[in-house]
């Protein structure tokens, strides 16, 4: 196709052709199959770009939400499998759980007496990034550094991932946790504020981490305010309420 043809395609799609041009265009669509094919591709490419660029945030939110759901689903069926296979081991787990409940209770009572502290709450779950990207060294690097509490290295790895995939909200969340750990509050709070105002599956987690960031900075009023914004259906709702009551 010539340059002029593509300009016509665009004009046709945006409705900017004159009546006579429009007639000629429709006629050519009928009679010239190469023209028609090129136009079909042009149209599809436009709609593809429209969706991918204009709805970037929406797509990222969807993928984040899907990530959470799929991991939860497969985690659940995996643990169901393990339970079935390991009934012999289960006695050990029962004692282990009982023991940890006792320890936790002691910890809890002890905490009731003292002032709440960031370090009471930063026992983050291990993150898992390698399920879907096993072959990517950056992901396994980030995961390992984060889980071994080597947060500076984790931040470096997260940054490398975000360079390729800057809208990866999951990585943004983990990065902000690592930033709070290393006292880089300004960047952490900015990131967490953005995530908690978004519509992704990570927004509630981001609120909780933001509250912890304020707690660590001893910005108690902001911390309380943020804790109150954690909704009832959030995973961290109970902990948020508990911390709020202690601060109040």
């Amino acid at each position, binding site marked *: *196709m010539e*340059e002029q*043809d*593509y*300009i016509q*395609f*665009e*004009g046709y799609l945006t409705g900017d052709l004159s009546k006579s041009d429009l007639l000629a265009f429709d006629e050519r669509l009928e009679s010239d199959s190469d023209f028609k*094919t*090129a136009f*079909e*591709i*042009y149209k*599809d*490419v*436009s*709609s*593809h*770009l*429209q*969706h*991918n*660029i*204009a*709805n*970037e945030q*929406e*797509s990222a*939110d*969807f*993928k984040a*939400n*899907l*990530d959470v*759901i*799929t991991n939860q*689903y*497969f985690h659940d*069926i*995996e643990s169901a499998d393990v339970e079935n296979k390991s009934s012999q081991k289960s006695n050990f787990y029962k004692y282990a759980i009982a023991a940890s409940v006792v320890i936790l209770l002691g910890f809890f009572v002890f905490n009731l007496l003292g002032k709440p502290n960031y370090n009471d709450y930063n026992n983050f779950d291990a993150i898992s990034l390698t*399920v*879907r990207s096993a072959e990517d060294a950056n992901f396994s690097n980030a995961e390992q550094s984060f889980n071994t509490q080597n947060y500076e290295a984790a931040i470096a790895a997260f940054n490398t991932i975000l360079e390729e995939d800057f809208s990866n909200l999951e990585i943004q969340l983990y990065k902000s946790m690592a930033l709070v750990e290393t006292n880089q509050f300004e960047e952490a709070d900015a990131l967490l504020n953005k995530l908690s105002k978004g*519509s992704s*599956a990570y927004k509630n987690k981001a609120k909780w981490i933001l509250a912890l960031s304020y707690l660590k900075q001893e910005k108690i009023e902001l911390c309380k305010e943020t804790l109150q914004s954690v909704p009832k259906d959030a995973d961290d709702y109970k902990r948020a309420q508990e911390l709020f009551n202690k601060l109040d």
Partner: protein
Amino acid sequence: MSDKKLHEDQKYIDGLAANNTFIIKAIYDKFAPKVINYVKQNSGDAHDAQDVIQETIITIFNQAKQKKLELTCPFDAYFFLLCKRKWLNQLKKRKVNEVTINDDVLSKDDDAQVLSFETSIFEDKEALFNEMFQQLGDACKDLLKATFKIKSMEEVAKSLNITYAYARKKKSLCIGQLTKLVQASPKFNQLNY
């Protein structure tokens, strides 16, 4: 397609497009087990099934967002065919020779065949468009990103420091160039144009 009756399972398509958590969970609960079984019976494991399902759902989301995706068959059959085709393609790529293709579960529902085939083609197109977009020059990439993000061509022109007329012309030429790249690709023939 328009003369056919929409299936009640259209709610799954609409729910995906709306990022409805409840619907997405329901899709996993109702339709994932069959796919997991199939993948496990054909040289794969649960992780493979997870990837296949996740990618398939993203494709359906993209198609539902961009084009009208009107389901005229049960979601079950449509979804299973898509996942199955994706898994068989994966196996082909991994060059697993002893694929035991278990065809007992093959759907005989015609609409499901047609619709899932259209979605597979859509997915291939998306992949090729993405690949070719990366081959554009930076000037075109920047202009297209700005055009589709900002919407108003006047503002695009201002932000890139070019005239309105030039921005408009350049937009169509850049999409034209992308069109040419797509047509020249060896993968183009599989796209049903």
